[in-house]
């Protein structure tokens, strides 16, 4: 058991260690003192307000990570989260601004719209894979560009409301379609929070995480998904329809991807505008990799990435280094993590194989052992 835990933790810890070393080197080259930089980050990063901002940043990252992980679980690379969520956000913002409903219902309609749009855009890639055997990596890359540079950019120009602010933005969603801040709840346990608000959508993210975990590990669909990912041939032989599983994974992933833009939309901006946060889709891939597609792991990954994003601001203020060092850190963490996972996995397999060889050697008569060993190595 402790050995299993070691295998789970070794890789991410090694990755963070390598990232720290490399970032320290970069900081040194840039003429900064790494220790003062890290201690400033730690001091600033453990403030209540920074943690709230971190959670706000981590919420969409988490959703994005889950959306990627659903595909990863069956070896599907849905790298189209970017296009799916941006498209979903702008259409959900439009729908939310045009309709009038009582508070909870209004939010629900916005959420469902976003999920439907995300699922549709992702489903397109799934459909192309199932019917025309188009690889999902290529189709989702192309659909990303078509969504972001094409459709969303076009919709933004068409739906832009000319107003005094000269800002390119859609009509705002009325207050019944907002998600309340959770500051009141947090303040029960802590001091008063200044300036920042904890977006309520974090609760939805928690629900999504739980549903994801249960769905993957405790249901028929989840079992089929994992089986198709681990061994497609065996899964097909045992009666799973691979095409159906591809569509299911893509549509589910897309539905979750549709949620990625909503924390910001429902929590603070309330309208889609030119400054709407992008690139969360690609960050989600990183977070899913870091968290090894596990609901809790992704949460940790999202928090780490969110924290790095938010706590790094202090570096510039205190004159340690440009905050962009964090982007390098994140990249190194990812590369180091995937390499470490690959190495640990190979080691684990080798140990499993030798353990199995030892077990068979013990169980079988000696004359068969040499044959078995030859096959296992």
């Amino acid at each position, binding site marked *: 058991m402790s050995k299993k835990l070691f295998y789970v933790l070794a890789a991410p810890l090694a990755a963070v260690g390598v990232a720290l070393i490399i970032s320290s080197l970069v900081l040194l080259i840039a003429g900064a003192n790494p220790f003062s930089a890290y201690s400033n980050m730690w001091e600033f990063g453990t403030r209540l307000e920074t943690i709230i901002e971190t959670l706000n940043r981590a919420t969409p990252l988490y959703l994005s990570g889950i959306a990627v992980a659903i595909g990863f679980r069956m070896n599907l690379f849905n790298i189209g989260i970017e296009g799916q969520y941006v498209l979903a956000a702008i259409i959900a913002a439009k729908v939310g601004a045009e309709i009038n409903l009582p508070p909870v219902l209004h939010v629900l309609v916005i959420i469902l719209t976003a999920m439907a749009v995300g699922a549709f855009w992702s489903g397109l890639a799934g459909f192309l894979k199932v019917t025309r055997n188009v690889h999902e990596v290529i189709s989702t890359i*192309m659909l*990303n560009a078509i969504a972001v*540079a*094409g459709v969303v950019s076009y919709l933004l120009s068409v739906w832009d409301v000319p107003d005094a602010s000269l800002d390119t933005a859609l009509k705002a969603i009325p207050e019944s379609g907002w998600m309340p801040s959770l500051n009141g709840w947090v303040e029960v346990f802590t001091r008063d929070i200044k300036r920042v608000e904890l977006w309520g959508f974090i609760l939805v993210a928690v629900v999504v995480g739980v549903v994801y975990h249960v769905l993957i590990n405790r249901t028929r669909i989840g079992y089929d998904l994992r089986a198709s990912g681990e061994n497609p041939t065996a899964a097909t032989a045992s009666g799973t329809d691979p095409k159906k599983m591809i569509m299911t994974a893509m549509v589910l992933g897309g539905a979750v991807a549709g949620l990625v833009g909503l924390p910001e939309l429902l929590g603070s901006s309330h309208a889609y505008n030119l400054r709407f946060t992008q690139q969360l889709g690609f960050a989600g891939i990183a977070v899913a990799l870091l968290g090894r597609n596990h609901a809790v792991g992704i949460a940790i990954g999202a928090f780490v990435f969110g924290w790095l994003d938010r706590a790094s601001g202090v570096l510039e203020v205190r004159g340690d280094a440009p905050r*962009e060092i964090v982007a*390098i850190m994140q*990249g190194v963490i990812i590369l180091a993590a995937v390499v470490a996972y690959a190495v640990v996995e190979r080691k684990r397999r080798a140990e499993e194989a030798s353990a199995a060889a030892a077990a068979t050697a013990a169980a079988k008569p000696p004359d068969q052992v040499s044959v078995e060993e030859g096959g296992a190595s």
Partner: protein
Amino acid sequence: MSGGPRPSPDLTTGWKRFTRGIGQSSVLGRVSTLSARNWILAALGIVFLLSLTQQFAKLETSDLTSSGTWIIALAWSVPIIMAGLGGIFSERTGIVNIGLEGMLVLGTWFGAFGTLLYGPWWGMVIAAIAGSLGGLLLALATVTFNVDHIIAGVAINLMAPGITRFLSSIHFPDRGGSITQSPTIVGVSSFSIPVLSGGIVFGWQSPDILGRIESWNWFFVSDLAGIMRGFTSGMSWLTLVAILIVPAATWLLWKTSFGLRLRSCGENPHAADSLGVNVYKYKYFGVAIGGALAGFGGGFLAVQLSGLYREGQTLGKGFIGLATMIFGNWRPVGTALGGLLFGFAETLRLRDPRAAHALLLLIVFGLAVLLFRALYLRKAKAASWIGVSATLVLVWYLSTNSVPNQLPKITPHIAVLGLLIFATQRLRMPAADGQRYRKGEGG
């Protein structure tokens, strides 16, 4: 076709048999499926369609075929083509390269920085080196550590903008730039070919024959002259280098034993290994060369086209390059033509929105050609699909006066999706592309 590389004497007959096998396989061994005469005919056909569109669209400006348009289109297609070639070198060794975008980004920054320090030529060299370092990082992750190619590529794409932004914040503010952009830089000079397009030879202003013909405004003839003038005048020396890289890449990949070994790693690495090819080494070579080409493309974008480094200036050109590579069926010449097509669409968008609208008509004419071909080959189903789409595009053209400004921007992506949907069987990627390889495992 059979002019394949000669096996070096130290290799066994097994190698000969293997290479012969590759040479005879349907697509791999052939440099092109068209002969030179057919290429010329096809090019003339395209020019004819363009001038036909020009006539029917009643454009006051002759932007579809003017030399001005094509000079710019050629220049703007260079980064796309270079990224596409970079993808070819990488994927021909079996490494899927999603990280092209990141390598392009590295190229833009280092190209601009190198130009600031040592002038544009050295700047481009530095850009190529930076790109190849990105490639080596990809190779380290995918070849040595066996990380999934897509994942490693995504990581590089995440990291590259961080690196450039960090470097910008250190270097550019003191030199008159900012965190997001460099100070302006000057690229290399341009030239025109003498006699044909009025180039200057030793101070003598030679006649501009093509320019003269273009100004006559004759149907087809002037259009042809305009396009030819676009390829022979106002061209930067760097563009010339880029153009020369295309046949050089074909030669290197299809006419040398280095290229054959490199491609064998992308087709069947275990067979290549059994015949003594150092698969790991060739994968490193391929990805590093690919990265250098992408870096060159990025440098060209910053140094020659934009005159400065600006954050986010690649605008997904690495992905367009990837699309172009597929469009060109993993071969240099096709990729170059695809890149030119996409650069042309982009140029029209920037120069003249009305001409971009006329592109719809061009698509209708193009589909009509395909329709006749399908009818001639008696492919009823294909013909009906093509007919329906042609009609729809024609209705769109006739019922509007302009296309959304975004449409030309996403043309490459739609084109590639269309190609993958309708012409998959004509595409052939390297057989072992994207697969993880470990020496001695399976095969």
